[in-house]
């Protein structure tokens, strides 16, 4: 029923993830390959997301495809009460691939079920965002030379941050050791800890963000602690700066350490970190282009040669 669509990173096996990362590497060497010549791709953004949309549209353009779509649902028939199913059925008459962002959880899974054409989930509510995970994986792979046996330290909002959950599940294929650094209110949910336990993946939970933890890490995955997640604003005021990374904290860190962040950042990474060669979040965003080109090719069954 799912056909070739990509709804969640868990749709892909370890081998498929590695295959996409290898394709991404080829696109980084040469991003302009006109393999989508003559194809039309829809980018349906029911919720605005500039970064993700521009990255996907750039990917399509560099592959020589044409784009139709919208970046704001208020200009579409969904404001007239058209169902998601009807929109998908209508659009799939015109295009070869649908790239969709939606504000509702589970919208991508449903759209992929009803769509006769393959679909790529560009984020469905607070649920899944597999292309973000793929670019995170590619960034780790590229900077570390491997995905195996890494110390991945996740910091900030580990409760609501969907990027950390998807990254955790995707990394679980590669024998990682996790460190979870979060305030009590934003701790890694129980279900993901059970998931690690079942697979025998070691993890350590920390309340304090210390240099000792940073010094062991290969990857520091920072996330934003969002004010609106707190019921007690006093609590927020207390923790908001505790999970801020400053350049001085990196003094004793490993040479291969890289700092990732899904962006946008607010105050969780101080600006003095930006000039440190271990800061990788801007390149990480650039990797999104290659990862998305690779995903598009995978979904459409297009093989890329060196």
């Amino acid at each position: 029923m799912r056909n070739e669509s990509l709804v969640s990173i868990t749709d892909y096996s370890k081998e498929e993830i590695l295959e996409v990362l290898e394709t991404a590497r080829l696109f980084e060497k040469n991003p302009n390959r006109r393999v989508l010549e003559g194809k039309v791709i829809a980018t349906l953004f029911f919720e605005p997301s500039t970064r993700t949309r521009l990255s996907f549209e750039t990917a399509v353009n560099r592959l020589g495809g044409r784009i139709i779509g919208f970046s704001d649902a208020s200009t579409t028939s969904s404001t007239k009460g058209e169902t998601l199913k009807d929109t998908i059925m209508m659009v799939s008459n015109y295009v070869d691939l649908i790239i969709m962002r939606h504000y509702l959880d589970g919208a991508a899974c449903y759209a992929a079920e009803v769509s006769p054409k393959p679909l790529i989930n560009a984020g469905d509510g607070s649920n899944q965002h597999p292309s973000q995970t793929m670019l995170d994986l590619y960034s780790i792979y590229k900077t570390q030379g491997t995905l195996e046996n890494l110390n991945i330290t996740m910091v900030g909002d580990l409760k609501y941050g969907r990027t950390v959950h998807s990254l955790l599940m995707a990394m679980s294929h590669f024998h990682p050791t996790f460190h979870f650094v979060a305030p009590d209110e934003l701790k890694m949910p129980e279900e993901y800890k059970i998931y690690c336990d079942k697979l025998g993946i070691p993890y350590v939970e920390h309340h304090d963000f210390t240099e000792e933890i940073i010094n062991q890490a290969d990857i520091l995955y920072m996330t934003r602690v969002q004010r609106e997640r707190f019921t007690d604003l006093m609590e927020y005021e207390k923790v908001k700066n505790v999970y801020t990374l400053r350049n001085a904290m990196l003094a004793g860190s490993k040479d291969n350490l890289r700092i990732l962040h899904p962006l946008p950042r607010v105050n969780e990474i101080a600006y003095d970190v930006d000039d440190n060669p271990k800061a990788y979040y801007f390149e990480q965003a650039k990797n999104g282009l290659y990862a998305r080109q690779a995903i598009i090719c995978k979904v459409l069954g297009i093989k890329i040669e060196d």
Partner: protein
Amino acid sequence: METTDKKLQVAALANGTVIDHIPSEQLFKVVSLLRLDQIDKSVTIGNNLCSKLIGKKGIIKIADTFFKEEEINRIAILAPNAKINIIKDYEVIHKQQVSLPDELHDIIRCANPKCITNNEPMATRFEVIDKEQVVVKCCYCEQSISKDAIKIK
């Protein structure tokens, strides 16, 4: 006392299905789940009867009606200990405990208001992830719902 109780519960049915050991507070939900309000056969409902097993129980007798297994198993979501008795010629010819299926198709509602299933005219689908504790997971938004939060569609 117990024997008269038993007689009262099943004796009157010549042919049909008896659903026993339904928790009292769930009885009318079971009625609506099986759409018994829409059938024309005679239906007898008893509620707040004494039960050694679950305290207070409800019982439903439906004359000349036999359910498919997957149909009757749907009630396990409300009454995991319910017992089904199939009656023919006043005899219990088959006894069976309901059991929760692996997947629930369009029976319950997702508890997540931001789930696509609550915003689009579509069927719901849930995977049963814990049959003992009755925990289900929405196949669309991937949120888990435990027993107390489960709402019938």
